[in-house]
């Protein structure tokens, strides 16, 4: 049921962007509270590696999943510090590489260079934040494999995909149905 466009990619990229399929059970939910209920029940039953789809980010889902804070913040921090350092290096090294006295000021005068350092902090911080989001999402996708998806999940339905081998799928199906799934599929 997945709708992703399948573009042939070179080997390592192919594995990251289109990982091999994972068997499991997909439940489709109409309501937020039933989804949260199902998450709690799944966690109580010992499931940890399931995926929750939602059209909007909701704190209820986050709290029920008990996720750790995303490591993207480290990317932002390191990118920002690196940008600031690059800005300082760029301005100071270039000033001393061809020293010209301007306006009777020191060749390497830090106050005006703060502007460049500031802009470079923002630029590198923002770009490495983007890389952080892309890398972390790609790693997560690689870990989960290609899992079932439904086109309604970007519209108005919530979904839970629980990876399970076919012989262990029926208790998961029952659990999702009991929690209020309007539709349960195996794949």
């Amino acid at each position, binding site marked *: 049921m997945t709708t992703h466009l399948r573009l042939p990619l070179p080997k390592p990229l192919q594995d990251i962007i289109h990982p091999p399929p994972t068997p499991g059970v997909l439940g489709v939910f109409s309501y937020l509270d039933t989804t949260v209920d199902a998450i709690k029940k799944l966690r109580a039953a010992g499931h940890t590696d399931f995926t929750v*789809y939602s059209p909007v980010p*909701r704190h209820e889902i*986050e709290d029920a999943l008990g996720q750790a804070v995303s490591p993207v913040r480290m990317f932002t921090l390191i990118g920002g510090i690196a940008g600031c350092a690059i800005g300082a290096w760029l301005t100071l090294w270039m*000033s001393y590489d061809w020293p010209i006295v301007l306006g009777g000021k020191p060749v390497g005068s830090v106050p005006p260079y703060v*502007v460049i350092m500031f*802009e*470079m902090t*923002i630029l590198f911080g923002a770009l490495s*934040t983007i890389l952080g989001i892309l890398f972390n999402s790609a790693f997560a996708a690689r870990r989960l494999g290609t899992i079932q998806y439904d086109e309604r999940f*970007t519209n108005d339905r919530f979904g839970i995909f629980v990876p399970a081998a076919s012989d262990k799928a029926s208790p998961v199906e029952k659990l999702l149905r009991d929690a209020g799934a309007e539709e349960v599929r195996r794949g």
Partner: protein
Amino acid sequence: MAETQAPPPSSRLTYDYVTRTIARTLGNPTRGYFLLLGAAVALLAIGIITLLFLIRYGLGLAGYSHPVYWAVFITCFVFWVGIAHSGTLISAILFLFRSGWRTAVYRTAEAMTVFAVMTAGLFPLIHIGRQWYFYWLIPYPNERGLWPNFKSPLIWDEFAIGTYFTVSTVFLIMGLIPDIAAVRDLATGWRKKLYAITSLGWTGANEQWRHYTRGYLYLAALATPLVLSVHSVVSWDFAMAIVPGWHATLFAPYFVAGAIYSGCGMVITLLTPIRKLFQLEEVITVHHFENLAKLCLLTGSIVSFSYVTENFVAWFSGNPAERAAFWYRAFGPYWWASWTMNICNGLLPWLLWSKKVRTNITALFVISIFVNIGMWFERYVIIVVSLAGEPYTTWTNAVYNPTWADWGIMAGSFGWFFMWFLLFVKNFPAVAISEVKEVLAPPRRQKARAGVQHT
């Protein structure tokens, strides 16, 4: 009129309704859309032809006359950078303030930011005259071993605008990803392929949201100081010089407030027709316009206060050159430009104290156009009139007058901006689907104590 009445019953505003209403804006373009696009492209063609003339015959075609060598092109540059600012204000600063109302209007504002910076960036290049040497601005190792002068505000500006363009573009694209995915799941044909590629495999899985929401927060946190810095740096292009009328420490906050004032005006100018054309009255309500008007009122008041301060300080400083410059500004040959600026930016926002005006979209649309005119003239007054004015009048007898080349390039810039904007609203969701849903009450089986009913 529908817009002056109470908002329609919110019962129709379900997740599904929001997705479909916004996705509908991407349907087949009407004749009206093609007429607008054609007009934009025609304006752009005027700009391109003018630019070709400028390249062939030189900048002498523009109205430059000694000592006014910063004129309409730099005015337009500052104008367009200013327009960009409210987009980031609405998308980043209001995001950090958790203002729910921003969700319906921020995508338009953010797209406006990106296209306005794209437009602004053209002007310094046109202004340097030899566009093919623009790369001299970039610090690159060259055979002369020279590096840019990092003490120059013009180089700061290059870094600020470059960063602003990059960051606002990635911020726009980031916000678009979940919405493109929502449209992808409704689309058919080549559009499905386009959206499948541009949504980068978005499914709304919890791992995606987890990194995305955090990353978005940090991007907003980085964009917030950036937007305040960019127009400050633009203002230092002037304030670091000793020209009377430019050399003021007030410039940075004064320019930032002016930028947001003009940008909010432009957002109203753009949203009014979009809302009508795409029938988004239920998503973008009078409430949103009223809030934009309040932002205009706030920033417009700061601008008015800056005008008063500027004139007061010129008098209070006792500096004869400064006093003469401001006298020349108000009562010299360019009095009409100064008074256009004072009336449009100083007096007009006072109308917005009235709730009747703030909730009347037609009135807001008209006011927003005058806001844009006023803010263009503000930059014209600051740049041209300061250079043309005292104490330089002693050495010159020619009055600066823009020529057809100045107006042609300016018309082209409007064409360029509106062309990109119109192409954007027809090809990508012009209203943030997932964020509009975020401020709705989610569907629950157990009715929440105070929620939005769903069908």
